[in-house]
């Protein structure tokens, strides 16, 4: 039991999780690292999907099902 706990603690300590400092986020700030590199294009795509299929994807979207969007 003790050995298991010790191993668990050791594993946690060696998990390699290093905090990324605010000034180390240069790579994350690059435009090609964005979830959506082209937000306008994605919005347009969603609108076309909604209009053609009458369905919304899992993302956030307006409209209350009245069909008037």
């Amino acid at each position, binding site marked *: 039991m003790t050995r298991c706990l010790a191993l668990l603690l050791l594993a946690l300590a060696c998990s390699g999780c290093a905090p990324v400092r605010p000034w180390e986020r240069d790579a994350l*700030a690059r435009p090609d690292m964005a979830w959506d590199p082209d937000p306008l294009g994605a919005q347009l795509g969603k609108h076309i999907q909604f209009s053609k299929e009458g369905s919304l994807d899992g993302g956030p979207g307006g409209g209350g099902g009245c069909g008037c969007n």
Partner: protein
Amino acid sequence: MFPARFRAISAAALLSAALAAPAPALEKGDRAPDFSAPGLAGGTVSLATYRGKVVFLDFWASWCGPCAKALPALDQLRKEFKPGDFQVIAVNLDRDPKLAVKFLSKRPVGYPSASDPNGTVPQRFGVDSMPTSFLIDRSGVVRHVQRGFRDGDVAPLREKIQKLVADKR
């Protein structure tokens, strides 16, 4: 109660967690630590040189959008006060200082910028967001910490600087 080995490993784990935790950010009333770092334009930038003046110390990077917005606003603020009363100094945190030099060649500012690609100085100040700036009074005490930068921040900042500049103690 616990075996010695367990205690030793627990202590090691706690120590590694403590070491990984970032230093707490400097707050109002804390003394700003002195630093010297090579300047982007050559020479050395040292905080101690500006003791006796009100200093706005700005940590920035060329990839940081709000930093780019802050630079011209800070340069404008600097021009509004006498050089003997108020100075802006910056610490650039780009991993490649050439990027900062390229940035400043397009958008030059009239205040010195140090280069700290390893992030030693921001660790000592406990910088926890980009940009973060510290308004330091004549005696070297932090009087305001500015996190982020928006257009609306300039007016309250000017007021704070005016108050500190008027305080000639």
